[in-house]
């Protein structure tokens, strides 16, 4: 993604304390990029969900935050990346209520609803990358 991210923040995710750090950083980067109000909450919530999935389902991963644009639209780019086991059936994982853990199964589909763009690529044994964008209003 070089060229697209001008300045970026990377947060290593390996414990549940890092989930808190990631959502705080997300809020801070989004504020710097000019987001406000409920958009900040939405961005922090999305990052919280994706960071938790990294902790829950893989050993370790990272969150990358930075600016993005498309034509005149300005926004924030968020990437959650891990080299964990991957998701066997991404279509299933994207359904409300589907969880291999003991949780609600709303993380992936819910976060997609929070974002303007949401893209997930997962390869068995290689890991998972979720790329999200939220545009400024």
């Amino acid at each position, binding site marked *: 993604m070089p060229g697209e991210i001008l300045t970026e923040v990377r947060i290593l995710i390996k414990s*549940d304390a890092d*989930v808190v750090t990631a959502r*705080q950083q997300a809020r801070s980067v989004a504020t710097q990029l000019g987001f406000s109000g409920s958009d900040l*909450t939405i961005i922090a919530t999305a990052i*919280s*969900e994706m960071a938790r999935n990294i902790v829950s389902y893989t050993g370790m991963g990272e969150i990358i935050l930075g600016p993005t644009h498309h034509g005149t639209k300005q926004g924030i780019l968020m990437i959650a990346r891990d080299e964990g086991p991957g998701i066997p059936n991404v279509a299933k994982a994207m359904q409300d209520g589907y969880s291999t853990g003991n949780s*609600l199964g709303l993380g992936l589909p*819910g976060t997609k609803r*929070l974002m303007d763009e949401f893209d997930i690529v997962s390869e068995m044994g290689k890991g998972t990358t979720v790329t999200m964008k939220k545009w400024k209003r």
Partner: protein
Amino acid sequence: MEVPILKQGDYLIASIQAALTDEDLLKLRDELAERVGKYRSRGVIVDVTVLDVMDSFASRTLTATAHMLRLRGAETVIVGIQPEVAFAMVQLGLTLEGVTTMLDLEEGLAFLNRQIKTKQGAKRAR
């Protein structure tokens, strides 16, 4: 980040002071279950006013906490969910099913007072 739990008469009030890790939330759940027994509390208020994110883990844990405390004889009210937080929760699909939510601490206390009076009075279908 430990959550202070105040005993106020028949009630316990847990005022979350800062962002919580998942572990902090689980500790809060266990601590409340224990103290409800110790203090014979009839009601519990969890004040989440300062939380700027209520994600699926927090929602699930608070819901489970409320159900657990009810089985131990105490009514639970979650107060202080901010409008933007509520908005994000709804988008995520989180609804705190079966949990009482009130605007703020004051409303929460008023609710518990009515609730417990009603429990003392004629039985209402729950």
